[in-house]
């Protein structure tokens, strides 16, 4: 099925998380946002103009939930440029290779450069990896671009792809994107606690966390509220929010209600009034539910 939407409603981070968790293969294409005359209504009943796709701005390819290649619409993703940007070729070398190597595929060109001792295989892999990640970090700061994820569309076989684990990309990209995004909306209640998901060892394997992130991780326990962890780590609300948000987005932790805490009262965007906790329903007997099931089955 199609995955279409707009980053205003479903952020790049959420898309990457979805692709990572569902181990998807395909290409995410993002487009220049063009405001149309068509009016749409969001889930809260607010009306706004539909944003339709313009020119393609970026495409990001994935295989089995891993990032493998990215291209920015306004950048020349030629291998020579990528190696030049990474400092492996000087400008003149890059220019000559671009001109003379125009007819070769990336793979063939890389092989020639390696055989000619211009670069090593590791240089090529590292440069493409960095180029790909830089594009994704950039895309993660976009906020209103239309997107479509085309399942099973992958780069042509003559392109060099480097599998990159998305967890670290999500953490670092979120870290950067959050510098400009209000965290309170994403994590309104600091009285919630955190717990590790199933198989935490597996999820944390290969993860590069900062010292502050490790400090927070060391306090994670369903009995500790986020506020308590912040106090123990001597962090401000914003600092703890930033770290917890990144860990949540990467699927490394989950929010839970700490023991003794009543049902949380969320603060949905735009809702100024405070919901009242409604008393639970009167005791219903099991036989009543079974009769309802029978009735609906027969209907």
């Amino acid at each position, binding site marked *: *099925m*199609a*995955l*279409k*939407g*707009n980053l*205003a*409603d*479903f952020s790049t981070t*959420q898309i990457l*998380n*979805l692709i990572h*968790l*569902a181990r998807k293969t395909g290409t995410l294409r993002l487009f220049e946002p063009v405001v149309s005359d*068509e*009016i*749409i*209504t*969001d*889930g*809260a*009943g*607010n*009306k706004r103009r539909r944003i339709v796709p313009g020119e393609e701005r970026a495409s990001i390819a994935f295989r089995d939930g891993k990032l493998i290649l990215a291209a920015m619409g306004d950048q020349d993703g030629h291998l020579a440029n990528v190696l030049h940007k990474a400092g492996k070729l000087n400008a003149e070398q890059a220019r000559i290779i671009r001109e003379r190597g125009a007819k070769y595929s990336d793979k063939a060109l890389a092989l020639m450069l390696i055989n000619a001792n211009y670069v090593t295989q590791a240089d090529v892999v590292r440069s493409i990896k960095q180029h790909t990640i830089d594009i994704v970090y950039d895309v993660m700061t976009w906020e209103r671009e239309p997107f479509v994820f085309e399942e099973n569309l992958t780069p042509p076989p003559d392109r060099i792809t480097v599998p990159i684990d998305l967890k670290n990309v999500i953490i670092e990209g979120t870290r950067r994107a959050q510098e400009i995004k209000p965290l309170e909306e994403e994590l309104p209640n600091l009285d919630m606690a955190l717990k590790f998901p199933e198989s935490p060892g597996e999820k944390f394997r290969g993860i590069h966390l900062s010292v502050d992130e490790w400090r927070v991780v060391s306090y994670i326990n369903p009995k500790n509220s986020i506020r308590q962890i912040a106090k123990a780590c001597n962090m401000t609300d914003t600092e703890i929010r930033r770290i917890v948000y990144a860990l949540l987005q990467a699927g490394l932790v989950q929010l839970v209600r700490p023991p003794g805490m009543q*049902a*949380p*009262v*969320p603060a*949905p*965007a*735009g*809702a100024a*009034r405070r*919901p*009242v*906790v*409604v*008393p*639970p*329903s*009167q005791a*219903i007997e*099991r036989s*009543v*539910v*079974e*009769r*309802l*099931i*029978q*009735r*609906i*089955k027969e*209907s």
Partner: protein
Amino acid sequence: MPIQTVKMVVTGPFSAGKTEFIRSISEIDVVTTDETISPEAAEYGVKEQTTVAMDFGRITVDDDLVLYLFGTPGQRRFDFMWEILAEGMLGFVVMVDSAKPETFREAKSILETFRAYAPTPYVVAANKQDHPEAWSPEDLRIALRIEDHIKLLPCVATERESVKNVLLELLYSILDEMDAGQ
């Protein structure tokens, strides 16, 4: 013998298909309290009416047991009705328009609000699965961050069998909760 009434709530964002859901299963014509949306909105193909206070449907089991289905208004400006409708509910269904990612955030917010009202079982109905641009239930689970033990069910609210399946799954969840509480 007094008639026992059981109440279930159908909630979700604006235009998620709540009214259609109740209409498909209710044995009475659904009592709606809709108001007409502005002509401008209707011109753009958005639905022409929206629920203001609630939708109301009924399924009679027998002489002494009746199930009432209440549909909440989707628009935020009518959310004062939500907690009133949530009172005493046996469980609730969160409807999501699978083809409208612009409503996912609101769906998640509504889900959390109703969870806060009462700790009753609930299921999520991934509605409009017959739409060509519908997100799959598996993708929706990740997008909405629905925990694995919560049922997320494919749904087409205009199809009676599909609605029956969602309601039955909610009732099974209620039974499971009862068993777990014993």
